[in-house]
């Protein structure tokens, strides 16, 4: 117990302290050891920075969209493929493979996949349809990244749903089939409600990971495409390293931290509400 606590104190409370001090200070790489306290000015500057709001909007939209798409696809696949996946274990291994590759590496790989001369995708699209879209220009980059993220992380939702689906006792399904319930009805009335908790968790985890996205976006486009792909994590990284505006970067990360606390707390509250309702029912 003690070692963990000490480790946490060093690696979490010190950063927290630094975060608080720096977010209130005027500080650059030169004055890092002697920050000058300026109160809430950094927060003000972040809050009036249109780039900050653009990045927040990107992250929020990206998180919600990818979570919903990944979970819908994952659920559909888990149910439809369940007969073959539970019988042939290797199919699961193949579907899990994308998750084992670093997200940043996948981002780099898509540079190749989408490259207008060396990439197979534009090659085949041009061959078959005569034209290929500019996947990474300012208009399309967002959707390209959504697809990239969805293709890599749908397996995660799939995995959770597969396990939840096969753990529904088969007697329940058999009893419903006995009552001549259609497969569709069994899904809506029995299976879906029984998987509700797993669905909520999968949505939550995928939203968080989408909201804080950095690796694949940064590796594929940087903040590029006219700034259209700057997530909050990238915004913080950029204002720290490129801009050297440490105070602002830290203030932005404090805001991000606050936002994730609110989300966490909200999620926990929702979770216990649901639990209570289930207990009451």
């Amino acid at each position, binding site marked *: 117990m003690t070692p963990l606590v000490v480790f946490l104190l060093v690696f979490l409370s010190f950063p927290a302290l630094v975060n608080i001090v720096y977010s209130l200070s005027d500080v650059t790489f030169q004055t890092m050891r002697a920050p000058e306290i300026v109160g809430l000015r950094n927060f003000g500057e972040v809050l009036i920075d249109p780039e900050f709001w653009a990045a927040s909007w990107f992250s929020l939209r990206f998180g919600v969209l990818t979570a919903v798409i990944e979970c819908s696809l994952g659920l559909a696949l888990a149910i439809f493929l369940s007969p073959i*996946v539970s019988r042939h274990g290797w199919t699961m291994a193949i579907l899990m493979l994308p998750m084992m590759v670093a997200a940043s590496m996948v981002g780099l790989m898509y540079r190749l996949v989408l490259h207008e001369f060396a990439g197979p995708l534009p090659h085949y699209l041009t061959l078959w349809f005569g034209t290929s879209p500019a996947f990474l220009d300012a208009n399309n980059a967002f959707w390209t990244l959504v697809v990239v993220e969805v293709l890599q992380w749908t397996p995660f939702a799939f995995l959770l749903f597969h396990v939840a689906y096969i753990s529904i006792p088969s007697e329940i399904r058999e009893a419903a089939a006995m009552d001549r319930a259609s497969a569709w009805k069994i899904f809506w009335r029995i299976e879906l409600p029984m998987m509700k908790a797993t669905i909520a968790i999968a949505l939550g985890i995928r939203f968080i990971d989408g909201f804080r996205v950095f690796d694949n976006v940064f590796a594929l486009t940087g903040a590029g495409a006219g700034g259209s792909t700057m997530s909050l994590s990238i915004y913080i990284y950029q204002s720290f390293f490129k801009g050297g505006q440490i105070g602002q970067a830290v203030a932005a990360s*404090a805001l991000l931290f606050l936002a994730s606390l609110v989300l966490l707390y909200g999620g926990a509250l929702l979770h216990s509400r649901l639990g209570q309702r289930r207990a009451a029912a």
Partner: protein
Amino acid sequence: MNVLRWIVFAIAAFAMNFPVIVTLITSFKGAREIAMNPGLLIQAPTFANYAKVLTDTSRFNIYAYLLNSTVAALIGSVLALLLTVPAAYAIVRTGAGRRHLFPLVANLRAVPLVVFAIPLYMMFQFVGLLDTRLGLGLILTIVNLPLSLMMMVNAIADMPGEIDEAARMDRAGAFVILRRIVSPLIRPAVVTAFTFGFITAWNEYLFGLMLTTREAVPVTVGASFFFSASGGGVQWGVASAVMILGALPPAVLGMLIYKQLTGSMTAGAVKG
């Protein structure tokens, strides 16, 4: 009906693994073929790209990147377990930290990592840990703590209590109990947590990018160097070979233990 399922499986597997497939194929193409034939069929397969990456280390040393990743990921996964096994034992058996410490660590998983990056950068600069494998390994430990703790708590909670109870009756110290009795019993969970932690640590990118510059660069960051290499275009064949080499270790590990991962990933997710 089953034919349809297999077709859907094939399409999903192909689409999800598409970047890996493309990269694998390109890594076996010569430079001229890449320029002429971007398709998925290779006309003249060659190992030249791998040979170049593995022998020409004058500009970018792939061995150094792979070694850095290995060392940092080992520190990150082993240290996380050394910290969480005793803590999990205390949480399960005495209930200490169950109310605050456990949720605090478990919820770390949901906090955007970039929030810690800047202060840790300052801290590392101060103590001279910037651009070291140890420094990167310590950060990767933080990344691994939440899932590691959850998996250890689950494993110890599933362990029959009478065994270490008896040892405690015999006045065995906590450390001895942990080493002699608990550790062997939870070994399968430890192996899974170690492997999963190693994969996670190996695949980490943000901290590698921020905290290393020359000496301790991990392969996730090193791979991107091959894209900005020497003016002119990217050498796609060489870059592909590098990406395959960098993606191979976690992929192989994952395939070796995917059955256990299925169980523990969902356990971690559901109880978190």
